Structures are given as C-alpha cells and as structure tokens.
C-alpha cells in the first residue's frame, strides 16, 4: 500500500489531485446573478442580525429610544438650520426667555387642560395642528423646558459620537496591538494604559478644561474619551491574547502575511461584537460625565445642554430645596436616564445578536439556496 492511498480510506474510488483540488465542473458551479449575491450579502449582514435584534425586546426598546433621540436631534437641527429650503422650516422653536409664563408648572391644569386655552396643548393657536404650550413647564425666566431639552440634543449627539469614536478607536489601536505584539510593546502600551486608568477622570478633565476651555461639543466628547478607553483596551488585549493562538492566525503568520493585515483581517472582525457593545457603553459614559461637568460649571456654557439646565435649576430655581420647582431639574435628569437606559438595553440586545447559538435559530435566508444552507 502506497502512502498516496490514504485518500481512499472510505473504500471508494481514489480521487485524482485535480478532482480533489481542481475547479468544479461547469454544471456544478453555482451561478449567482449580481442581484442574488447582493441579496445574500444583505441577508447575512443586515437582515439576519436585524431580525435577531428585533426579536429581543431589549434591542427593540433600545433602538426605539436611540431613534427617538436621533430624530429629536434632527428636528432641532432642521429648526435652527439656515440652509437653503430648510431655512423656513421650524419644527420646534429655539428656546428663549419669556416664551412662556415664568415658573410655568408642567402639565398645568392636569389632563383636563390638554386643549384648554393656556393649557399645555393650546389649540387656539393659528396652526392647523396642535401647538404645545410648554407641556414640560418653564424656568424662572419663562424658558420652555421642552424646547431646551430638544435643542440641546444635537450637541449631545455630536459629543456622544465623537467620544465613542475616539475612545473605541484608541482602545482598538492600543489594546489589539498590545495583545498581538506582546513583549516590550505590550508592556509599554499597558503601562500607558495603566497610567491613564489611574488618573482620576473628572479631575483630569477639569484641569484640562480649566486650561483649554473646549467650546465645541465634539471637542468635549474627545476630551471625555481620554478616560473611557483604558478599560476597553485592557479587555481587548486579553481577548487578543487568546485569539492569537488560534490556528488560522498561526497559519497566516506562517505564510508571512504582515502583522497589520493579520490584525485587520483575522483578529479585529472577531472582536467586532465586543467593540460595538462597548461603543454604546462609551457613549453612555460620555453623556454621564459631560452632563456632570456642565452641571459643575467647569465647561464653558455655550449652547443649551442638559447639564446647564440642571445647574440653572439647582442654583437659580433652588429645585431641590423648593419642591414646587423640582420639575425643572427632573426633566433633564430623565433625559439622561432614558437615553442611557436605551443605550444599555441596545448593547445588551446586541450581545445576543452576536451570540452564534441564538443567531442560528433566526437565520432564515432570503434569496436563493435558502434550503441548501440547512444541509
């Protein structure tokens, strides 16, 4: 028996090298039109994850909350925009003093007052549809709180996106390189991570803000990202430490593929779910900290912001001591809680999307070959 016989261990006919490694016969080759291929891609990357995500109530609520947040931001952006046809479109007016009676209580007059004159939805307005008359109340200066909340949303979005982007990007860069390269590079990078992790975040940001007051929202996000990345970088590093021992990574390494390619093609996609979930968490921590710093008055008061609203309610409305004014601090607090609740639920739900066992159950394919996938 020759050593080449080993392919015939099933007792069947021995296959030639061409049959084993060559191309398929013309008839066996599966022909996919561009449209079908697009359908398969769409299915694999968009529809199936979407279906799995939507089947979980947490993701559903998370997506709803985040979409509401984004739509609010869009509405506020359109209202203040001076661009072409959007100039005349005003969905929600910008807040200003004396737009409402001062110290107007929220839901004034209870539910009976919904359509009454001067109630919280005033139908006497000339608009064909209903107009809200400060349903969430107004400040001591007669600024409607609802409008303030809505108009501070675009800046919050900018802050969250910038913060999440920078912190996750830094974490990916540092954590994955450290974990994969090992040795000296690892210890240097991890020392830097430890140093940043040790520096207390809020005092550090306060010191930076005292020297360089950030005027743009995205810059606030970037500064807040300074403290958000080390935890994630450490977590990613430990994940990479196990991934780099995998056989396919080792195969790539043996083939002489450069490290950057291995890192971007083989390792990072494996970590994507983890990274996405943490991006949502980073967004949450950026909101938490920026609101806290605006509340403290450390960051310059430039535009409307939930933290500034809380500060005004606290120091000028005496919202904590005077229970009648508690609503002034309540609404911005609720905004922070609701959006971070949405982000957390979303990230928990995404965890399920990336869990292969749950995903398999829902991966009903559209397009061609749906049944073949089962075999």
């Amino acid at each position, binding site marked *: 028996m020759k050593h080449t016989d080993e392919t015939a261990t099933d007792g069947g006919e021995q296959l030639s090298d061409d049959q084993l490694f060559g191309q398929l016969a013309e008839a066996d080759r599966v022909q996919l039109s561009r449209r079908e291929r697009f359908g398969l891609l769409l299915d694999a990357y968009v529809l199936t994850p979407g279906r799995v995500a939507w089947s979980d109530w947490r993701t559903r609520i998370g997506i709803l909350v985040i979409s509401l947040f984004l739509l609010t931001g869009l509405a506020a952006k359109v209202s203040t925009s001076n661009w072409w046809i959007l100039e005349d479109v005003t969905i929600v007016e910008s807040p200003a003093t004396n737009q409402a009676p001062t110290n107007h209580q929220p839901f004034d007059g209870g539910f009976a007052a919904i359509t009454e004159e001067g109630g919280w939805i005033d139908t006497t307005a000339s608009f064909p549809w209903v107009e809200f008359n400060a349903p969430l109340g107004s400040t001591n200066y007669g600024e409607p709180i609802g409008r303030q909340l809505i108009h501070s949303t675009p800046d919050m979005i900018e802050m969250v996106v910038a913060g999440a982007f920078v912190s996750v990007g830094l974490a990916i860069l540092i954590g994955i390189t450290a974990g*994969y*390269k*090992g*040795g*000296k*590079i*690892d210890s240097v990078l991890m*020392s830097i991570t*430890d*140093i940043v*992790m*040790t*520096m*207390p*975040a*809020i*005092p*550090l940001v*306060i*010191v*930076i803000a*005292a*020297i*360089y007051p950030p005027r743009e929202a995205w810059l606030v996000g970037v500064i807040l990202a300074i*403290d958000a990345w*080390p*935890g994630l970088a450490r977590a990613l590093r430990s994940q990479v*430490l196990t991934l*780099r021992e995998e056989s396919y990574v080792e195969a790539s*390494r043996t083939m002489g593929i450069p*490290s950057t390619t291995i890192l971007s093609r083989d390792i990072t996609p494996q970590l994507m779910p983890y990274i996405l979930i943490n991006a949502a968490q980073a967004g*949450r921590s950026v909101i*938490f900290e920026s*609101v*806290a710093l605006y*509340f*403290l*008055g*450390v960051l310059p008061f430039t535009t409307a912001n939930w933290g500034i609203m*809380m500060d005004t309610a*606290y120091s000028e409305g005496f*919202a*904590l*001591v005077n*229970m009648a004014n*508690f609503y002034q*601090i309540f609404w911005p*607090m609720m905004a*922070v*809680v609701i959006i*971070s*609740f949405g*982000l*957390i*639920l979303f990230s*928990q739900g995404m965890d399920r999307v990336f869990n292969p066992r749950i995903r398999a159950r829902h991966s009903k394919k559209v397009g061609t070959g749906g049944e073949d996938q089962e075999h």
Partner: protein
Amino acid sequence: MRQYLDRTRNGLVSLFGVLVGLRYYWERIAHAFVTLFAVTTITFALFRLMPGSPADAMRAEFERRLAGQGQAADPEVIDQMVRVHTGFDPDKPIYIQYVEYLRDVIIYQDFGQSIQYGDPVFDILFAAMPWSIFISVYGLAFGYTANILLGAAMAYKEGSRFDSYSTVGATFLNSVPYYVGAFFFLAFFAYDLGWFPGSGRYSRGLEQGLNPEFMLSIVHHGTLPIMSSFIVGFGGGALAMRGNSVRILGEDYLRVARLRGISSTRIATRYVARNAILPLYTQMMIGIAAIFSSSVVLEYIFTYPGVGWYTYDAIMRRDYPLLMGSFLFFTIVTLIGILIAEFTYGIVDPRAGSGDQSEAY
C-alpha cells in the same frame, strides 16, 4: 551537623521561594511609582508648559490685586509671589524647574501654597482626605457587596420572575448617574422629609473625638453621600456576577463536587462564588479610579468638604496650586487602592502573578 546543614539549606530554599513570590509585589510597587512619576510629570506639564499657563494667570491675578491696593506692580515681587505659591521660579529654565518641583513633591511633600487660603496645599488636602475616603470606600464596599449578593441570587433563581425583574432593575440602576441619585436623595430625604442633613460633615457644637454623639453625627451626615456613591459602585456588576455564576453552574466540576458529597454551602462559597467573583475583582480595580473622581461632583452637591469639594473650590477660584495638588492626591489614593486590590487579588486567585511571559511576535 548534617541535620543543621539540611535545615539551613531548606531555610534558604524557602527564603528564596518567598523572595521569588514577592517579586510580583515588588514589580507592582515599582509600577505604581512609575505611574506616580508619570502623573507628576503630566501635572507639571499641564501646569507650566501649556499656552496661557496657570502661572501667567496667577501673575495677572497678583498684578490686579496689587493694583487694587494702590501699589505699583513690581515684576520682581510678583515673580517672588508666583514662586512661593507654585514652588517654582519663573526665571529658571523649565527642566530645572521640573527637577525642583519633583524634589519638592517627593522629598518635602511640598505641593506649593494655596492662593486662596494661604496654607500649604498638603495640609489642606491631608485634613480633607479621610472624609473623601470615608464616603468613597463605604460606597464602593456596599456597591460591590450588593452586586455579588444580588447577582448570585439572580443566577440561583435563573429564569424566574425574580430574575427577570431584577435584571431590568439592575439595568435601570446602571443607567442612573450617581448625581441624579444624589439629587433625588437630597430633595426627598434631606429637604422634603428632613431625615438627613443636606450638607456638612458633622453637626456643629459637638465635642470632637471618640464620643458616640460625634460619631453618630458623622454617620448621619455621611449616609446620603455614601448612598449616592453606592450607585457608582453598583454599575453593571450584578449582571456580570449573574452571568459568571450561571456559566459556572453548568460546569462539570460542580457535578463532580456534588457526586463527591460536598456540602451545598461549600460548593456555593468555594466553587461557585470564588470563581464568579474573579472577573468582578478586575472590574473593581477600574472602579476605584471612577469612585474617587466622582467625589468631586458628589461633594459639591452635598457640600461635603473633602478633597473633591476643595478641588471644585480651587477651579472656581482659579487656585491652581490647590487644583494640581488635589489632582496628585487623587492619583496617589487611587494608586494605593489599586495596589491593595492587586495584592489581595493574589489571595482570591492563586493563578495571578505566575508571570509567564508570552511569546512576542
């Protein structure tokens, strides 16, 4: 004779073993010092090298103050005042200033002098430190105890109604920022119901010392800040603990332990809890830094004069030496906290610190 030789040899071997075992601790301590050195350097750089540096701001402040008193601003006098307050001479080259700053901080514990209070920064912060540690450490301890207990209970009752309600509850608590909790506590428990005082560290007019009234007063004033920092420590820990416990409950070694007839309490504490707590422990090390930095906001809200409150005060009055000093103080306390956590980590997890260096690519 031979007996003694053997004994000596054994003693030497075990001493060597102890020293090798201690190497991990020495490394961690050295690491902490490197971190402290780096942070001091960054502090100095922030303080001195950035454009529009605090030293310039301070100089402008002194000029204004002297002009207000009707005195001509003599540059030499002002330089002298800046030197006294920051601890470095503006005329010397920066690297000499840096070395002198390090020397002052390390050897003389001299962080400069507070502009506003006129006292050495170290004395102000050292007096305030125990109060910050008091509210932070209890908050952290209670937060993590609650995490572990709730997480374990949820895992034990996995899939039950209690489990799903607690999951939603823990998620909700996770999305409530600590300062929002503090606002609610202040508004309802302090001002509306009047159960707890809304500010201060202890009641005035009490004899200070180890008498029960004074200590009760401290606890009374500390309750709301501790409850708020409890929220910081709570985080997503309960859910993490639940996840870890559920995974461990399905492991084979638990079945083996049960077949061997090991008691349920021993299984619960030695087999499940110990393994489930480990990942939480790492998370806690990161949490230490978070809880100290949150004290700036909490102490401001509760008017609780700890280091955080002085930090806020220093920013508002542009008292940069105090600000820099408190920043260094926060870092040192965080470092000590992390060191303690790391050293005890070796007790919780015997695998830690085995120090097998993985291959470098």
